[in-house]
């Protein structure tokens, strides 16, 4: 996006722009229970197991080291220095714009379009997390190249990987909804329903995500289980979905290929979220307020996910000055 930050720019950022007030409360509170990790050279976070007594000591460290990247654990430990005594961990969804299997732009890395689409997907997930699952204490973080949904609801904080995985499958739409419902009357025939004919509960979540995927297809994607011809037809007939005319859409695709498509879309839905982050109980994530030096963007908490614009809220000052210099030079 804005290219890699130099060490001078990192120093300027942490000395002149960064403030401990930029740390969200959910990070500042309980900071002593978390593990920190740093990447000083841009080779990955290899300075691990750091612990800070408070935001002051963190501030001194950041000003002095001006790290390439800073991370904080999702987990709370009795002894974070040794990652010992795991107590609980945030529940996290990592949606990286560059890794979206379906995105309408064709950029190499990340651009305004795919970041916008990543945020749309974040908003859809938020609706399900709050509306269906009733989860609270949810924070959205712009990570520099995508978004983290960080959930501190006590229900999920103590959940094991298995429960995290099951909730993920629900929220991501990673399972094809069942198409047959039993009939309690002895000898009665089961009822058959396609996912799109049930406008509530999980089938509705799945349908919305499939619709979103199809409407954002470019036609040149490589999707497991969808061959070129099917892909072209999905694009050709997608207009039916603007009106939610799933019947005509399915009819044109054909029942067998429709089934293939639905199975493939469940996989796409899962691949939209970095699942290994979600089920990990000890992950470290980019520290909100820190600098993503690779793209020269700030990792910031998103106050309003409906209107958030990273180019308005997450660009460090030195980038504007860098631009000015470029403009002046030109």
């Amino acid at each position, binding site marked *: 996006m804005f290219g890699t930050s130099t060490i001078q720019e990192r120093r300027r950022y942490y000395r002149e722009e960064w403030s401990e007030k930029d740390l969200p409360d959910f990070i500042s509170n309980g900071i002593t229970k978390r593990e920190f990790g740093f990447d000083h050279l841009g080779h990955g976070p290899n300075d691990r197991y750091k612990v800070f007594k408070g935001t002051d000591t963190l501030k001194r460290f950041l000003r002095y080291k001006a790290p390439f990247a800073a991370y904080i654990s999702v987990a709370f430990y009795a002894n974070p220095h040794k990652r010992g005594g795991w107590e609980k961990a945030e529940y996290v969804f990592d949606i990286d714009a560059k890794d979206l299997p379906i995105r309408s732009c064709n950029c190499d890395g990340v651009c305004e379009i795919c970041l916008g689409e990543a945020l749309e997907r974040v908003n859809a997930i938020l609706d399900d997390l709050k509306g269906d699952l009733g989860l609270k204490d949810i924070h959205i973080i712009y990570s520099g190249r995508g978004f983290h949904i960080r959930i501190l609801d006590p229900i999920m904080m103590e959940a094991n990987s298995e429960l995290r995985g*099951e909730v993920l499958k629900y929220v991501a739409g990673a399972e094809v*909804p069942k198409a047959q*419902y039993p009939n309690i009357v002895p000898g009665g025939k089961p009822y058959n329903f396609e996912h799109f004919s*049930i*406008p509530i509960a*999980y089938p509705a979540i799945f349908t919305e995500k499939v619709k979103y995927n199809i409407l954002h297809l470019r036609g040149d994607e490589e999707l*497991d289980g969808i061959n070129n011809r099917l892909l072209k037809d999905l694009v050709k007939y997608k207009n039916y979905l603007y009106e939610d005319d799933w019947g005509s859409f399915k009819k044109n695709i054909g029942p067998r290929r429709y089934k293939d498509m639905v199975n493939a879309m469940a996989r796409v839905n899962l691949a939209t979220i970095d*699942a290994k982050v979600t089920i990990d109980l000890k992950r470290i994530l980019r520290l909100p307020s820190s600098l993503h030096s690779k793209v020269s963007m700030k990792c910031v908490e998103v106050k309003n996910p409906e209107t958030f614009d990273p180019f308005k809220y997450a660009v460090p000052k030195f980038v504007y000055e860098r631009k000015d210099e470029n403009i002046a030079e030109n």
Partner: protein
Amino acid sequence: MAFEVVIRSKNMVLVSYLNPLSEEGRGIVRTLGGLEEISLDNDDLMNIVIHTNRQTISNQDVVPETIVDLAINRIKWYIERKNNKEFNPNDYSYFFNEALAEYDTIAFHILAQAIANKFRPGSREVKLFVESQGLMIEDRLTKLPLSDRKELVEEILSDLLIQDGIKWSFLKDLIATKKLSLTDLVLENGEIVLDREEFVNTFDDKFSDRSPERVYDILIGDNLRELILTKLLMQNTENYIKSIQDQLSMVEMHPAIVELGEMLDETITETLARYSTFYASGGTYGNMEIGKLIKEAFPPCIANTVEGVSSGGRNDAIVLLLTSFVSYARLYPGIFASDRTVKVSDIDTNLNITLNEILPLIYEAADNCNPPLFEDQPQEKINIISKLGFGMHDEVNLENEGETKWYTPMSCEKIKMHLPQLCRENKDCAKINNPLSYYSRKKWIIAKNGELSSKKASSEDSAD
């Protein structure tokens, strides 16, 4: 013994007919004089059995004479019902005779104790018992008259769920263990919608072409309530076994229960063996023999790993997935059906196989990675050794064995989440939940179809 005083609920059918762990069920167990009684001929029990509608009485094997027989037959019923294509429901009609509820409750409790005492937590036998209880509840529900069925479900559910608005998180153990899927529930603000009126009020505006009442009947109605009830009772059964096992070190089990455990061990092994095909005797993957690695039988995820993985998933693919897969596939493919705690050296006594076959394959795959794994992360060699159970050392050495755990391969579901780039399902992946199961099955198919070269086939059974 005969039950003269029974604690009948408002229903004609006892709650313990479905939920032997209810207060009522525990009360019934307390009426049992002593555990000696369970092995004595019981005329009252036999009387109920032979007077059950359509009960086969010509086959002595299926007619219980004692409560111990009844308990063993509960397990036999399950295995037969699940596996026998010619299963005759009349052989076990008495299990669906509500008059048997008291005896059946006692049979359930002694079974739970015997299984908890004899088998380890999470074993095949514990799972089998929990599943048998689930299927028993399901079958009993379908055989009850509709009005009794609704009333009984309502009564038990209100006992189990306590509050009116049930949060999905109340069922989180069921969800985490996949006994119940979140996707089967209708959720609103964190609560499970089970009530018809609430459903209609909440979702009325969502339906334009059909009545919400009708949709409620199909999506939720009695089906979902019964599903939740069944799964909760299965979970409670599992918890009951666990609680007994937790107390085993403090309590000495009655000899009658110990003996029942021995009998169950024999019955389960014998009955399962009758229905195993490629799984061989001993149940699912029970006696899979060790043999040379057949790469043609590798599942796609493993084949992809062997070919090399690009940076990002290299470490987990080689250290966690491939190391555990290759070692178990080569040495002990039947691990998931086994009760034993095994070490590599139990099978590979001088570590020849590990050194000459297993590690070279893992190292080759590591070298195929882009960039080669050990080039920038040589410490991963130590991690590989540790996942084989030989501690954090840079060489496999018998004296270090047991310092770490011999890791089992992760499930397909975990692979999909951790290493999605490696999972390229093919038709043989259907109904498989672990790459090791895929391997065992595929190996069997290849051998059956004679696709293996005679050289490979002959070396198959030779243990090194």
